[in-house]
């Protein structure tokens, strides 16, 4: 009796689909959780610095100083929350988190300017949140700078230099994400994160569960080839993850206005390659663990953390120490992210990220090959561990006698 290896895939696939269908918990895990995560992260993980609560102490109260205050009032980056009379009050406001920044205009502000001296304006920042603090400082500096230029120009005009223009005029344009919205940047990252976590965890679980229940042993004594088992599991879990990825994309568009600019098939290709490497990782994890709990912990450690921290999802890889940058080359999500951001945000063609696609393909092939080897070997090593345990425990027991 010879059966082609491909003929074994069908029964495994049908079995997996049936099991997934009956296990509503894991279906929810794969479909609902990703969408939920996107909404959560999309709104919560907001690096945009806007509406920073500001206190203004205008000790001068002149027309010039009010002009400066007006500048801070009209920008969306700051919101004036308090106008205390004394600088001493700032400390209290900041400690209670009422304001995160304070602007102090000294009494002599207008006087100094008129006299042609430079006026000291104090800008105080709450450094407890370093990230938003430095952004706020940048905004404040820019506002003060432009106001200062205006005053200079006005003063020079008054002295009879006529109408003047600044020698350098900067015109900053942000491409791909003109409003510099975090959400646009995050949706591709979230997709990588969600796909990786969901697929790796579900695959690892589905195999460890078979080991726990003993069905894997039953499969090992059958002629079913490991490759058929892997493909039979890859297809259902892959399709569900793919559906999940599309839900994330649709939500990203509906909630955050992130539309796919580039080629859809390139997007699909990178997703599929990425899914295969995630699946392979899941099988590898399942081959070194015995219980679903341990499998889950290892999945968290090897997917959530690296994808979150090392892939460039949140922290740019460029800013990492060199040693850490080297490690990031081992994270498939890193390549996936570059490709994904390229396709979704920039609408770039394959020329821009073929290296990433190639790396993903290498990861996918390696993961598949390794997982087949591990599944084939699994029987021997696992058997040994079980055997040894039961032998140590029950070595001396005498056969039971049973009533006939």
């Amino acid at each position, binding site marked *: *009796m010879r*059966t082609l290896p491909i*003929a*074994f895939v*069908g*029964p*495994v696939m*049908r*079995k997996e689909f*049936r*099991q997934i269908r*009956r*296990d509503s918990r894991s279906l929810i895990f794969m479909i609902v959780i990703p969408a939920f995560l996107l909404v959560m992260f999309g709104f919560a993980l907001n690096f945009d610095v806007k509406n920073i609560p500001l206190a203004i102490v205008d000790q001068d109260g002149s027309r010039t100083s009010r002009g400066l205050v007006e500048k801070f009032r009209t920008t969306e980056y700051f919101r004036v929350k308090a106008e205390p009379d004394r600088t001493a009050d700032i400390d209290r406001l900041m400690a209670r988190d009422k304001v995160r920044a304070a602007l102090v205009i000294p009494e002599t502000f207008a006087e100094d300017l008129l006299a042609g001296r430079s006026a000291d304006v104090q800008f105080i920042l709450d450094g407890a949140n370093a990230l938003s603090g430095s952004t706020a400082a940048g905004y404040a500096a820019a506002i003060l700078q432009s106001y200062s230029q205006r005053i200079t120009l006005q003063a020079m005009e008054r002295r009879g230099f006529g109408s003047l223009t600044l020698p350098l005029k900067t015109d900053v344009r942000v491409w791909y994400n003109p409003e510099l919205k975090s959400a646009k940047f995050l949706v591709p990252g979230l997709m990588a994160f969600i796909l990786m976590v969901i697929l790796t965890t579900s695959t690892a679980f589905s195999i460890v569960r078979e080991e726990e*229940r*003993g*069905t894997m*042993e*039953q*499969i*090992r*004594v*059958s*002629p*079913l080839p490991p490759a058929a088992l892997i493909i039979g599991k890859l297809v259902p879990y892959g399709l569900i993850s793919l559906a999940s990825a599309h839900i994330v994309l649709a939500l990203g568009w509906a909630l955050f206005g992130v539309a796919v600019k580039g080629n859809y098939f390139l997007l699909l290709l990178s997703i599929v390659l990425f899914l295969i490497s995630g699946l392979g990782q899941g099988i590898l994890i399942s081959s070194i663990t015995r219980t679903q709990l341990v499998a889950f912990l290892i999945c968290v450690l090897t997917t959530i953390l690296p994808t979150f921290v090392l892939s460039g999802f949140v922290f740019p890889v460029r800013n990492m120490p060199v040693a850490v940058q080297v490690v990031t080359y081992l994270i498939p999500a890193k390549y996936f992210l570059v490709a994904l951001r390229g396709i979704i945000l920039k609408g770039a063609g394959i020329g821009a990220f073929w290296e990433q696609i190639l790396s993903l393909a290498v990861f996918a092939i390696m993961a598949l090959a390794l997982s087949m080897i591990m599944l084939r070997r699994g*029987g*021997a090593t696992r*058997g*040994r561990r079980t*055997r*040894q345990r*039961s*032998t*140590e*425990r*029950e*070595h*001396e*027991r*005498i*056969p*039971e*006698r*049973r*009533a*006939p």
Partner: protein
Amino acid sequence: MADYSIEVKSLTKRFGGFTAVDDVSFEVNRGAIFGFLGANGAGKSTTIRMLCGLLDPTSGTATVGGFDVGREPERVKTVIGYMSQKFSLYEDLTVAENIRFFGGAYGLSRKAVDSRLPWVLEMAGLKGRERSLTRTLSVGWKQRLALGCAVLHEPGIVFLDEPTGGVDPASRRRFWELINELSERKVTVFVTTHYLDEAEYCNDLRLIHAGRIVAGGSPRELKSEVIRNPILEVSSGRAVDALEALRQEPWVLETSIFGTSLHVSVADEAEGRRLILERLGRAGIVPVRIDRIVPSLEDVFIHKIEEHSADAKNGEAAP
């Protein structure tokens, strides 16, 4: 090819410093019900796992259905069925879905599975329950279903590793009827058990202790040939005290407790009766009765294990 469906030569499995199966050799006739009898951890499952290609032997050879286990494990898999100690079907699939999946795993076409399905349902007594989830079945049903799945592809050899654990006596009897039916159809059944009463159903037996085969033959041969000395059953109501009293006597060859009575092996029946009465009288024990009994497999087993342990001790003591 010889008439044997399984041939094992000097099979050994070591795990680190521990020898689980130690130089085991035997042959199994086609269509035999071959019993592997031993305590938990004696090496039964390890042997079965090597024969099914789940474990690589440390040394020795084994052929199953004419294929070498070490060199052609994939071929072996096509001619055997295996039922593990632990119930291992998919609890979240229905009866029919399990049968269909394992049919596929054994490379049967969908058509072939369709034609085998009624047979398995009939055999396991699960007709009309095709659509029940397997987890809702009782242990007895599950075991019959597992056996059905193991013989779906009509293998010539089935390995059953402690198949009747945790089953009620009626289901156990039914299961053994199925095993007999398989044997009648010339299927070789290799079954491990630690239930001595089940061993009586086998037509060829090996006793395994601490990884070694200590005795072999049909149950009848074992009982008549291994134990030549008469065995007296002493009922006294004070079995433990009686054991203490008799244990050290030089004329007592072997003694062990069986429930509330004592089995005492002696060289001669009449002399033995006299000596037992006299020794127990000194200890203040009055036996209710003393009967000569036909040795049970358990007597054989204990006899062989004690013999084996004594040998092992002498071996260690020797310089």
